[in-house]
């Protein structure tokens, strides 16, 4: 492997990490609160707003059922509005983030729903405000589940980021397509795949370890 290819590989890995990190961060910033709201706004729940809950649920489902590559193209005007351009790594972060928010929201929603309703009742009986219930009970108790949700999100983001080569986003996937496939360089393809596998493996095991540390429900051996 030539030094040029190696430099490309390093650059592409950097781009992938950059896109995944920023999209993951901003996606969590919006996705986690949305997930909490989805889990607590049903009929008779903490922030009961059944009609808002229903509308948001529909929006989330719509966003999740749009194939990512179509989403990337479809929201180009919005991307240009936010990033100033629709081409390049930074621009690619916009569709990645948009796809991440509903993804995280649904995962966080189910993690919060796993929390025993008895705990919410106990907190209400103590005189906790809705905000205190969210932060001291729901988020604290759902922490292992949310950690797993974020791990899954990052792994999915690594996969999604391979598609944004279509809008000049760069990254490992783009390198694999342009050099490995279009220029018939199977060794580059193999290395790209290998780096992706290692990345996903690292993220997954770090996430699992963290989730296990947060989870006090099982008796430690």
């Amino acid at each position: 492997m030539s030094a040029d290819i190696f430099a490309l590989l390093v650059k592409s890995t950097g781009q992938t990490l950059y896109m995944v990190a920023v999209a993951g961060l901003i996606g969590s910033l919006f996705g986690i609160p949305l997930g909490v709201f989805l889990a607590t706004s049903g009929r008779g729940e903490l922030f009961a707003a059944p009609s808002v809950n229903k509308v948001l649920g529909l929006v989330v489902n719509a966003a999740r059922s749009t194939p990512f590559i179509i989403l990337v193209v479809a929201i180009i005007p919005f991307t240009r509005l936010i990033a100033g351009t629709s081409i390049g790594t930074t621009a690619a972060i916009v569709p990645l983030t948009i796809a991440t928010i509903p993804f995280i929201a649904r995962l966080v929603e189910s993690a919060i729903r796993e929390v025993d309703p008895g705990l919410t009742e106990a907190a209400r009986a103590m005189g906790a405000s809705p905000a205190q219930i969210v932060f001291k009970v729901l988020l604290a108790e759902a922490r292992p589940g949310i950690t797993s949700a974020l791990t899954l999100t990052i792994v999915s983001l690594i996969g999604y980021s391979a598609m944004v080569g279509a809008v000049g986003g760069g990254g490992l996937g783009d390198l694999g397509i342009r050099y490995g496939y279009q220029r018939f360089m199977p060794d580059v393809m193999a290395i790209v795949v290998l780096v992706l596998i290692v990345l996903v493996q690292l993220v997954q095991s770090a996430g699992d370890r963290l989730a296990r540390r947060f989870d006090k429900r099982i008796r430690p051996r």
Partner: protein
Amino acid sequence: MMMTVVTRKTGEAAGTAAGDGLTAAADPMVAFEGVSKRFAAGRTSAEVAALDGVDLIVPRGSVTGIIGRSGAGKSTLIRLVNGLEKPTSGRVVVDGVNIAELDEKRLRDVRRSIGMIFQHFNLLSSRTAFDNIALPLEIAGVDRQTIEKRVTPLLDLVGLSDKRNRYPSELSGGQKQRIGIARALATEPKLLLSDEATSALDPETTRSILALLKTINKELGLTVLLITHEMEVIKTIADHVAVIDGGRIVEQGPTFDVFTGHTHATTRSLLGGLAGLHLPEFLTRQMVEKPEPGLRTILRIIFKGENATEPMLARLGSDLGIEVNIMAGAVDEIAGRPFGMLVVSLLADEAKIVQARSFLADHGLSSEVVGYVR
């Protein structure tokens, strides 16, 4: 020999249980006044009445128990006290404040003065024993130093100082409930609500938890309101009891009086195995309702601890010349006072039976004729 036990225990136990109830009744800790609660049943307009015109008094400083079968409305009733449920009509007055008319903000303040424990403990799995007890204090905005000063003695009180940094998953059921109790006491409440707190525990653990609740009631002067379906719980610690059935309170008062008086059908069926209330099968099989010459009279004698029965039975024989046979009997303890029933058969004519009963009544023993056998 049963009887001697009865006489000895009478003196010390009688006064304490009966005393506080009467004086406190004028200014109760909790009063339900004509409280009804209906729930919408599904999407249809039909409603289900969980509680129907409940009037209930929880005397200050008492341990008041509400007993009923599942579905009788117990859970709804206890949740009305701290406003987790709102009544459809009526007033729920806690320490002079009508809970039903408070807004959320003021309700939260009131809740901080009412502790609650639960059947499934409801401890946060992500917090240690210490941090679970600290939770209500954090919610009330108490600073870390004060929390430390409050929680440590509470761990001591419930006997789990060594489990301070353990997570709930590392504790047994009884230990979890002790942490639950410590948590409920953290804000120094004036009232403790117990929602089937021992129903998920084995009999031995149940006894130790009940003993702890009794200690707290006595030493901290905390009023305890508990709901249960277990008669054992009521008998062991409640000095006041209310029996609930189909959303209505069918009987209430000092536990000893309710359980030993002419009890309501629901109370009787809940009492179930309580000493001597059920006649043994061999007796009921051959029993007839009408007296005939030559039949033996079956008499149930109820002694409430104050009177020795043995010499009385002996004197029925010596003074009145009546032959007494003991058929069944048992002694139990209710609210710390001995209570027993003795089923005897007497071979005597009607006049003699009347004489015998008035003799027993003169000595403070009530009796009833339950039937006749050959």
